[in-house]
């Protein structure tokens, strides 16, 4: 058991890949082997990851379950993995959704079954790797390698415009990640100049040494590194205006691909901000804060408005992701404990509820081969079980109390309301100041819009008369399909009713993060003058609280 405890991250991460390699040697006509084998591997992986939840010592803080091996000593790269509360939750989300995504593919994937399940398993390893890596090189390898299976997932099993969507996804994210690579290189070369020691990619070292550093050269460099990271992470989140790949990728991807994409891949962007940008580049974070908040709020409102006018069910859910991820960003960039905790929790919530929404769309699409909202109506009479589950998930998505979404959004708003009033813009000419409470108010508007488009969707599809004869033939969910949704619903209720365990897990890491951010308040941001603000808009500078 002790041996397992010290290697648990490696085992959980690489088990799916090992399974995929094993499946390579099975004849491609044995489709049952692939379906059952992949499901079993993903399920075992999920079970193996569960002990993390119980073994993680929430009171201790720092990175736990660490493992370190020398990998490329010539350039200071280690195989160094470990998790804190934030990555723990994301890891569990990944293994959990992994099982569900594979389970949901049983009937949907009939073509090239072997490749499909191998790719799904390989993708699983890539995603888990991103969350456990504590070495920047290792992180980058996982971060980019994962794009390849995702590309194939969309490109081979996707909808009619799959090639366009797949290459758009790949190019966009690759462009972001190579720019991020430059940021990583800058840190890598700067670190030894500070310490005078050996070069390293150790993330914890970067945080420890570079985070609190306040010399002018580094403060200037931070701004550039932040921008490099920003492009990489913002495309992944995706933040407005980098979101244009998302609707295409989501609409064309097969159901399981959408679930993984929305559930896990998007979280990597927000995770990147929390894990790297905030603790390593605290001063630049504060410097760009008004911009981040503005983009987050624009994303919330814009995503919701665009979702409202969609005719395609799946596209609506895709745009709702833009809006929800805006919430996560708002929480994270509130830079206080409530905000970041809420932001991280909302990442989990969004993974659950939007993942489930994509599953629900997929189930309808498998039956009707259309996703046009106008084609549906009155389904609740024909498919009562489906309608019930859909209702619960809708409520979770719009943030009804007793369900998970409420907890996340509420915490984020608490954080957003305490954003110092100085963080904002003065619009030149009219001299209006936008900042402080404005961000939270705008976000509340997003919640209202979110309720509107989700409930309207529900009304148009589930209620009303069952007037389309095609819909009268629809079958309600079978046992396996219910099995894919019920666990998600259960977790949604759990988080909604008793979120304390999750907050406990997040408490230490978030508190440490906020401490790091506050430690340097005497630095750049405090001295910021209006002239130092980005061109075109004048910053009010953080006002004394």
């Amino acid at each position, binding site marked *: 058991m002790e041996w397992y405890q010290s290697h648990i991250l490696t085992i959980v991460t690489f088990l799916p890949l090992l399974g995929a390699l094993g499946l390579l040697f099975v004849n491609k006509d044995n489709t049952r082997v692939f379906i059952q084998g992949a499901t079993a591997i993903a399920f075992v992986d999920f079970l193996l990851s569960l002990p993390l939840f119980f073994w993680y010592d929430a009171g201790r803080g720092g990175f736990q379950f660490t493992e370190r091996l020398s*990998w*490329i*000593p*010539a*350039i200071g790269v280690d195989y160094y993995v470990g998790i804190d509360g934030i990555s723990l939750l994301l890891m569990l989300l990944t293994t959990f959704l992994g099982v569900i995504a594979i389970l949901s593919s049983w009937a949907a994937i009939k073509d090239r079954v072997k490749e499909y399940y191998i790719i799904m398993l390989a993708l699983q390893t890539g995603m888990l790797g991103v969350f456990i890596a504590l070495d920047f090189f290792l992180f*980058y*390898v996982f971060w*980019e*390698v994962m*794009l*390849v299976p995702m*590309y*194939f997932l969309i*490109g*081979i099993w996707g909808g009619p415009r799959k*090639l366009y969507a797949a*290459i758009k996804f*790949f*190019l966009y994210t*690759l*462009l972001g990640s*190579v*720019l991020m*690579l*430059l940021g990583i*290189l*800058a840190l*890598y*070369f700067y670190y030894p100049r500070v310490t005078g020691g050996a070069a390293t990619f150790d993330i914890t070292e970067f945080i420890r040494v570079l985070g609190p550093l306040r010399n002018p050269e580094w403060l200037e460099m931070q701004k*550039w590194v932040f921008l490099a990271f920003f492009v990489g992470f913002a495309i992944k989140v995706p933040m407005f205006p980098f979101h244009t790949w998302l609707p295409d990728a989501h609409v064309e991807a097969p159901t399981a691909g959408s679930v993984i994409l929305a559930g896990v891949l998007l979280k990597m962007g927000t995770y990147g901000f929390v894990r790297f940008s905030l603790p390593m580049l605290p001063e630049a974070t504060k410097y760009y804060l008004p911009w981040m908040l503005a983009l987050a709020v624009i994303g919330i409102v814009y995503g919701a408005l665009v979702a409202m006018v969609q005719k395609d069910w799946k596209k609506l859910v895709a745009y709702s992701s833009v809006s929800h991820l805006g919430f996560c960003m708002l929480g994270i960039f509130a830079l206080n404990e409530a905000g970041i905790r809420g932001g991280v929790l909302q990442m989990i919530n969004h993974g659950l509820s939007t993942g489930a929404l994509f599953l629900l769309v997929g189930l309808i699409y498998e039956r009707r081969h259309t996703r046009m909202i106008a084609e549906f109506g009155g389904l609740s009479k024909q498919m009562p079980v489906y309608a019930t589950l859909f209702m619960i998930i809708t409520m979770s998505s719009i943030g009804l109390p007793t369900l998970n979404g409420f907890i996340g959004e509420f915490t984020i708003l608490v954080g957003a309301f305490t954003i110092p009033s100085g963080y904002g813009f003065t619009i030149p000419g009219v001299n209006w100041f936008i900042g402080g409470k404005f961000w939270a108010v705008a976000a509340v508007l997003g919640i209202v819009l979110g309720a509107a488009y989700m409930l309207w969707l529900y009304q148009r599809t589930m209620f009303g008369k069952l007037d389309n004869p095609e819909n009268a033939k629809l079958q309600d969910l079978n046992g396996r399909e219910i099995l894919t949704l019920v666990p998600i619903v259960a977790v949604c209720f759990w988080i909604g009713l008793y979120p304390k365990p999750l907050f406990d897990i997040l408490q230490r890491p978030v508190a440490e993060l906020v401490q790091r951010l506050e430690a340097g308040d005497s630095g750049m941001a405090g001295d910021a003058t209006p002239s130092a603000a980005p061109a075109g808009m004048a910053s009010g500078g953080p006002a004394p609280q």
Partner: protein
Amino acid sequence: MIPIFDANEIRLISPEIVLTASAFLLLWLATLKDAAVRRFVPGLALLACAATLGALLAFPAHLGLAALRAPSLTIGFNGMFILDAWSIFAKVIFLLGAMLTILISRRYLEEERAQGAEYYALILFAVVGMMFLASAGDFVAIFVALETMALSFYILVGFLKTNRKSNEAALKYFLLGSFSTGLLLYGISLVYGTTGTTNLGLIGMTRAQQAMNVAGAPFFFLGVILVTVGLAFKIAAVPFHMWAPDAYEGAPTPITAFLSTGSKAAAFVVLARIFAISFLKLGDHWAPLLSILAVASMTLGNVAAILQDNVKRMLAYSSISHAGYLLMGVIAVGVGTTVEEREFGLQGVLLYLLIYTFVNIGAFALVIMLRRDQVVGDRVVDFAGLSRRAPLPAFAMLVFMLSLAGIPSTAGFVGKWFLFGAVVKAHAPWLAVVAVVNSAISLYYYIRIVVMMYIRDPEDERRVVPSRGQTVAIAACVVFTIAVGLYPQPVIALAKESILSLTPWSP
């Protein structure tokens, strides 16, 4: 009696002697009428390369890499020939490249009905030229070695005598190649005229400094520029790339593979030596010049590659853009202010050349594999459905394409990491930004091949079976690409050792 050469000096060039002798032996075999003997020619050529490799690796095995930096052990023929770790690493690249090329040649020549022992002899002669080029310590030696290599390639490019494209390619390559040689020679003469020597080390130590401080300085600079231009032709950097797409498309495909790797590597090895040793103190002057070449090569190469429907032409343009990436390693030498910064760039160049050789020859091997009676196999659509017609080779091609695009866990990423890192480290991050954006763009055309192989349906359902030589070559390339991608430590360590002879002093 005064001996013309002493035995120690002869020992320095023993690998080259082995290779030259083998090449002549093959030429003699080519005159035999006996077809049975000729069948052994490719094998013999491989053996010759292996023997040369053995003779070459005996030096570091006996003396150790560190000892190779001592001048008395390594410099011969009055400074004409330098046997240092740098040149040994480079020669290993050439020999491995040549061996892979020979492996993928046999079936291709049968398909083209152009069997000939002289083909293999010419490859060996080209390698001899490259090897002397890597070791050249003097502009005169550089010129002679470069011509040995180039002349062999002129013939090889036009080796398909009945093929019009091959003839056209050879003529174009010959004319533009001679033109560039002329420029190089003119540059060398100007450098000689202003510094009074052709010895690379001597120019670097004192003469360059002196030449810059006298009235003749403009002529010296002109000489440097012309040398740069002459070599830029050889590495096919924009705007001196015009010959490359046509020559690459028309040449026999194995020769295209070797031209884009071996010949380019040789030119880069000598380019790096000249700039790191002779013209180091002018770094501020030539670094901007090379930066223009690098940016133009990367951008134009990538954009043009997107438009190609012919895989050989696409790989030709891709090879132009890779020359642009490689130039960044040399630029880091020019703009770097500390020894570490310059070393990083040189390491990047060496590593990238080694990696690129395996990856690119691997990619060309796939094009050759598709060559069948009526199918030329070099159109992008010829790759349609390859994952079903030949699953393992298709996977290999996937690896090569991802590696060329620089996706991690393949060797290409390691190479790019060093080159991009070199310019970031040497405080020219804007160049790195151009490079990474380009490297993202390049994915677009590499992935087109992948789409063809994995997503499109085949036009022709027949299975494709590679020949034995092709199988060995493809397997070697793909194993190398993945192994170095996952565990690059050994090659990085070797490259680190191998560049020290090029950074003997600070500017």
